[in-house]
């Protein structure tokens, strides 16, 4: 399928270069929030974001398969 985006390569390179600004932001925020200042919950999320999200997604799927649905 042809992508809808024109100049896809240009956009992709912009996307990739934006990672550098994110890296600098992370350094800045790490200075402001030294590790010991963070709550255990936030430390857990930062240390293993993928496993945290995977677990949350599995919880969500289970809730819907149990017929409980939205909590709100």
């Amino acid at each position, binding site marked *: 399928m042809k992508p809808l985006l024109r100049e896809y390569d240009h956009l992709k390179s912009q996307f990739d270069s934006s990672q550098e600004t994110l890296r600098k932001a992370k350094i800045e925020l790490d200075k402001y929030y030294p590790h010991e200042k963070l709550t255990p919950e936030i430390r857990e999320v930062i240390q293993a974001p993928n496993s945290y*999200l995977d677990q949350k997604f599995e919880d969500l799927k289970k809730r819907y398969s149990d017929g409980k649905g939205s909590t709100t």
Partner: protein
Amino acid sequence: MYQSFTLSDFAEKSRANFDRFRTSFPDTFLAGESQNRLFNLLAEHLVIPKAGELWQEEIPAMLFGCSSSWAHSFTATATGLDEHGTTSIRRLIEFTCYIAKITRSKEKAKLWLNRRESKEDRLRFASQFAIRKSFLSEKYLHLRNLLVYYDHASDFATHANLTMLASKTLDLNGALGFSVFDDPEDVPVSVGERLRSHHGYLSPCFST
């Protein structure tokens, strides 16, 4: 218990909070601008839909919805109004999920457009576009992180419940109080959270 304020005070403090964040965390602010530029590029310049292909014609408007939601989210969060920032992210996730849903489907694009035309359309839309329920299959695996954030936003920001108010509480010499703005100490980590998850919102748009 909370301190009363005028709307002018509110507007002035919002602006002052935003400026303080921008000058105190220049690299983090720049990263937000960088993401903003990407959304702008996506929404305003780079999409060329095929005429007569309904789902393609709808996507530019939906990408604008993504872009404006990102801008609202970042500015509100940096201002110390994380609940609005999170609610805007929830809307951004809706647009992103709906883009995934209508891609290559004239019928679904039509339903997205006409969802309020009749009771039948409302019911069909509610069934086929329901976030989270209709996005749990393997087909939408790339959206799974967004569904988790959506769930989080529903609990902690969008709806009128106690968890939404949790981030607004103050300790006033032992008494419970509320503040319109977030604790300044919490603002940078909230903005960091916006940036950390940005990839999840952009990537599905790229793969359209």
